[in-house]
């Protein structure tokens, strides 16, 4: 059992002297929700769990960790954070380490081989009335869902998150301990992006205008993104004020284009932005478009290789230069 192994590894990690706490998943308070859990050494690890419901990324919590002001204080405290990470999370970590957003020696990564997670919206549409914490296990390509005292068997593909169906790296790429066997990677494709590209400009404009008019600028997509970790965000800047704070289609458009472009060649397709969006904007459509371009034009995949340099900081004379007229 993965959960049993995870608990063993967690206990082992927490018994290390240099680990200050562990970030993992626990069952949420109702329905199919999952919450993050922070366990300090000597605390109970019984609540720790892992299931196909674990669809949130924990990397952001590492980025939110406060650095103590002086080196002496930093040296006095144990420095490592133990983290339960899935394939996509380790891609984010790879990129963060490369960008020096986080140091590898500050992390103790417990990699969990992930066979795909459930889309919260899909499962809640299927079982709208569930209030007690529910259980989900995966077995032979089916999900066995136990909720309200009943057990249901549902084919995996019906509930799987869309991004997981094109996930190439379900097995963690970097880890200190790996749990579970290597998961089979699925072929990546960009069919829906290619389809959308074929539309005339006016239709695309109409589609996005309609979408961006819904945005309420809660900045949830920015706040949840493991790769948006600037301490001063261009959205909050008042001098110069790049984007007005009013919620308006033009400002929303500007915000989303800036947000997407800051992830150009960086987005690792964890789908967090789309998951947390209260207005259901198809944000991954923009991100995946850039991902596709990075792959097709420059043969670059973000977070795959910790050695390669970030895409937008490198220049090769053989790079495509069609944009220079």
């Amino acid at each position, binding site marked *: 059992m993965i959960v049993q192994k995870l608990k063993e590894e967690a206990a082992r990690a927490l018994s290390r002297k240099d680990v200050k706490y562990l970030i993992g998943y626990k069952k949420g308070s109702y329905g199919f929700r999952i919450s993050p859990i922070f366990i300090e050494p000597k605390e109970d690890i019984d609540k720790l769990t892992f299931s196909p419901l674990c669809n949130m990324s924990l990397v952001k919590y590492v980025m939110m960790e406060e650095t103590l002001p002086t080196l002496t204080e930093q040296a006095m405290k144990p420095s490592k954070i133990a983290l339960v990470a899935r394939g996509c999370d380790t891609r984010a970590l790879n990129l963060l380490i490369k960008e020096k957003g986080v140091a590898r020696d500050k992390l103790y990564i417990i990699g969990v081989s992930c066979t795909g997670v459930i889309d919260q919206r899909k499962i809640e549409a299927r079982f709208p009335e569930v209030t007690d914490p529910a259980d989900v296990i995966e077995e032979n390509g089916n999900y066995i869902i136990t909720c309200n005292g009943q057990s249901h068997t549902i084919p995996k593909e019906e509930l799987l998150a869309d991004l997981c169906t094109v996930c190439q790296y379900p097995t963690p790429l970097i880890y200190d301990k790996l749990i579970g066997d290597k998961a089979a990677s699925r072929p990546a494709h960009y069919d829906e992006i290619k389809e959308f590209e074929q539309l005339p*400009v006016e239709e*695309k404009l109409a589609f996005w205008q309609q979408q961006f008019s819904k945005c309420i600028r809660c900045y949830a997509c920015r706040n949840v993104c493991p790769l948006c970790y600037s301490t001063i965000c261009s959205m909050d800047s008042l001098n110069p004020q790049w984007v*007005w704070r009013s919620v308006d289609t*033009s400002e929303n458009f500007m915000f989303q*284009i800036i947000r997407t*472009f800051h992830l150009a060649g960086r987005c690792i397709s964890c789908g967090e932005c789309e998951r947390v969006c209260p207005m259901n904007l198809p944000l991954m459509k*923009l991100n995946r478009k*850039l991902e596709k371009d990075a792959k097709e034009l420059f043969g670059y995949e973000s977070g795959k290789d910790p050695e390669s340099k970030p895409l937008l900081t490198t220049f090769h004379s053989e790079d495509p230069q069609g944009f220079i*007229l």
Partner: protein
Amino acid sequence: MLRNLLEFSGINPLRLRMSWVSASEGKKFADIITEITQDLKSIGPQKAYLRKAV
């Protein structure tokens, strides 16, 4: 990539242009500006995403 992204989100790609012009290439600069002005005239003003006047 920005050009591709803008096109993807419904902005005519003719509106964005990047060129290298050295300080000694006055003729090239003039030509490029003339070209982009003609392009813009041919597609007209961008009516969508107009910022509201305060």
